[in-house]
């Protein structure tokens, strides 16, 4: 661990928000370093495709948008550190310090200002069988197809909530796969209402209409207000039981939907929307709030992305899920705000530079916020989580064990964690927190925000011990004074 570099601005996350912010900051003459765990910039939407994918996936605006972003970065003075993950963060006033693990081992970087643009995490609600390797996340499936040019299977069931459902279904078809069925936990009416809102955003409306028409023309069954009750492995694939809606449980009757259908498929792509990745902002002590519409915690920010902690910014989906177009605008505004706060530009310049983006943002925000509830079916589904469903896959904790802990008096997620090991594994609760929170809240009638969230701990991902220890001799270890006799 060498002495940390000091002084510059650091942006964590090279997606559209982070890269745009870094570019804006560098344009104002401030030294800025962009850190991303991927080998190239682009994030989720603009992730660099493999050469194979470039040949096999029909050209699309996301490839070209990503290429443009990468070209701009290459031509800029932004210092990039790719294939590098942040595993720890410290508030070292003034400024902050980040611990990194990169191609050359561990390192530490100091930041005068830190922009957190690490995007979103996929949300899962568990059902028996979801831990089968052939069940993958919607976002994961999308990356596999779009950036890898590979289908998750020939026959795919697409399930969960939100617009990603239809995007993924569309991608499966685009690559020549078969969509067996689309299982949507939302109502059909929700989509129709959304169409009205989308009139504000004609580009998105056009895209959505295209996807829907294509699914309909292909005669693919779409079940609304439905969920996967269970997935069973079979010799030649998966057998998937679809359950009727959770309407009964929503109304508070506690009745679970009855199985209505079975499908066979090679794989299931499923997910229940996205949530901001808040490990960094929480570790650094920014204030967070629970967004009821989105069903997740997000850092409290002002319109420019300033958090409650001086010098710490959150932007793009890391500050609340709004999608790629908003992420770019937010990143741009945050970049200018950093320049303003660092004294590189005057208040007047900031106002004129951000006038148009702020106007566009207001329009887009309106649409994006309307979409949030569609991404958030968790509250109504949590009650339906089967007792034998594994909720925490790292520690293999089933829903029944969580319900027993709640019955024994656990009332917040950290207590639940201590009593069951749920969330104690390598993923640090990223996969199970939403299921556990929903289940806890549903079991004792608490609002989900009172269930809290798992306390973040370092390292943010499993870290090779040898990377931390390096080469050393016994005599190098500073042994403090012996404990009292």
């Amino acid at each position, binding site marked *: *661990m060498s002495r940390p570099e000091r002084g510059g601005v650091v942006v964590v996350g090279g997606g559209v928000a982070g890269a745009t912010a870094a570019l804006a900051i560098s344009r104002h003459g401030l030294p800025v370093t962009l850190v991303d765990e991927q080998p190239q910039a682009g994030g989720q939407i603009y992730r660099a495709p493999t050469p194979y994918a470039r040949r096999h996936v029909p050209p699309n605006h996301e490839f070209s948008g990503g290429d443009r972003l990468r070209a701009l970065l290459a031509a800029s003075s932004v210092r990039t550190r790719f294939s590098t993950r942040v595993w*720890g963060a*410290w*508030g070292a006033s003034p400024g902050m310090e980040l*611990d990194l693990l990169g191609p050359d081992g561990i390192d*530490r970087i100091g930041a005068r200002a830190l922009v957190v643009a690490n995007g979103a995490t996929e949300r899962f609600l568990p059902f028996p069988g979801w831990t089968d390797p052939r069940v993958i996340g919607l976002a994961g499936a999308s990356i596999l197809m779009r950036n890898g040019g590979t289908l998750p299977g020939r026959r795919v069931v697409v399930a969960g909530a939100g617009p990603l459902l239809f995007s993924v279904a569309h991608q499966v078809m685009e690559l020549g796969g078969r969509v067996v069925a689309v299982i949507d936990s939302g109502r059909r009416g929700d989509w129709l209402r959304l169409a009205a809102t989308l009139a504000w955003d004609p580009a998105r409306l056009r895209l959505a209409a295209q996807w829907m028409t294509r699914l309909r023309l292909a005669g693919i069954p779409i079940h609304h207000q439905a969920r996967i009750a269970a997935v069973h492995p079979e010799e030649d694939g998966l057998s998937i039981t679809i359950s009727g809606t959770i309407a009964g449980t929503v109304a508070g009757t506690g009745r679970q939907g009855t199985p209505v259908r079975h499908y066979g498929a090679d794989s299931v792509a499923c997910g229940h929307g996205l949530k901001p990745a808040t490990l960094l902002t929480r570790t650094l*002590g920014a204030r967070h709030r629970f967004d009821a519409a989105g069903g997740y915690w997000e850092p409290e920010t002002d319109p420019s992305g300033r958090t409650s902690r001086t010098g710490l910014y959150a932007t793009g989906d890391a500050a609340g899920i709004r999608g790629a177009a908003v992420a770019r605008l937010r990143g741009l505004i945050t970049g200018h705000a950093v320049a303003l706060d660092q004294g590189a530009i005057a208040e007047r310049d900031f106002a004129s530079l951000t006038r148009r983006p702020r106007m566009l943002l207001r329009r887009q925000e309106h649409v994006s916020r309307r979409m949030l509830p569609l991404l958030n079916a968790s509250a109504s589904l949590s009650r339906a989580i089967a007792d034998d469903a594994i909720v925490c896959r790292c520690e293999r904790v089933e829903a029944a064990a969580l319900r027993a*802990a709640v019955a*024994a*008096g656990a*009332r*917040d997620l*950290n*207590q639940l964690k*201590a*009593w069951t090991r749920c969330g*104690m*594994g*390598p993923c*640090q609760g990223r996969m199970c927190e939403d299921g556990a929170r929903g289940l806890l809240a549903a079991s004792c009638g*608490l609002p989900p925000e*009172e269930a809290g969230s798992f306390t973040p*701990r*370092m*390292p943010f991902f*499993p*870290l*090779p*011990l*040898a990377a*931390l*220890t*390096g080469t*050393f001799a*016994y005599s*190098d*270890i*500073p*042994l*403090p*004074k*012996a*404990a*009292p*006799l």
Partner: protein
Amino acid sequence: MTALQDWPDGSVDVAVIGGGVMGATTALFLARGGMRVALLDRQDLFRAASGVNAGTLTLHMTRAQLIPHAMRGREMWLASRDWLGADVGALAAPGLSLAFTEAEEDLLRARARIRRQAGAPIDIVPPSRAAAIEPGLNPSVRAAAYCALDGHIPAYRVGRAYAQALAQAGVMLFAHRAVEAIVPDGAAGGYAVHCAGHARPLAARRIVLAGGVWLEKMLGWFGHAIPIRCLVNQLAVTETMPRVMGSVVSIANGLLSLKQFANGSVLIGGGWQGEGNIHEGGTRVIPENLRGNLRLAQHVVPRLAQAQILRVWLGLESETPDAMPLIGALTARDDAFVIGCVHSGFTSGPYMGRLLAERILGGAPDLGAFDPRRFSPSPSLPEHTP
């Protein structure tokens, strides 16, 4: 916040402040002794030191004068089903403390001798014997202190067993109650316990302070000015690994504790310090200390070089100026008590709590060495106003 459950009518016999191992055990045995007990904590039970500690049941690292208590406490943990009503996963294991240099060997022998005199069955054994007990050890060990009576316990599991036992014993549990002041209640002859979020105080005839590292301020309520030092101890845990060790390993100066739990994860500790603030909360790893701790662990059990570190966390431990516990009465009227600052207190916690309960119930266990009045013989506090 949901509305806080209200206090019981009338006064309780004892209000115990602090739901760690010290307070919870005291409350449990007081209730079993027939008293009406309320247990208050500003958060949930066992979330401070008692829920995040390394769970080593250790005689090597316990202060020599506390060895008899630690041996009793260890026995209680191993038999938790009998008195707590649930098996908390305590395992007996041999304990080894190692020396790699000549100076360490001298220290090892001195410490072992003193502990042996205090009743711990600790012997110095040659490297070959240490390697036979723990095949994963670095062969450069010069000498080892061996104790058959060591062990470990996954600390995070203990809180749930206590919650159940306390409820069964009839202890009234009030979580999320931060006690802000305790004042003599002239009229009733007891105390008024004031909590954040409650207009009305809880009335209690007796008080037990068991606030761990937060004791200093609480002692002030009773006129005792005892500086309590806060140790910010660091722990690291690995991913689950195939078996790499079966014993509990430390080094001569006490700055390592290493063991593998039943689930395969290895816990690395030893009291390396981080930063923390008991008033504002929040802790911070000192990276050089993390590295030192991990290097020491890897030196001692070389196969840990293949481990992945899953988590690092810090916990707060309290210490008095003479590093000896505070257990006993705080007032001349014998109606307020303290329990805390016990070195390796998780090991002896159940026994210490039982002793204090016995004392409050009218027994006369020997707590002389722990008397809080050794620091402030005549507290400046308002005794009860007549």
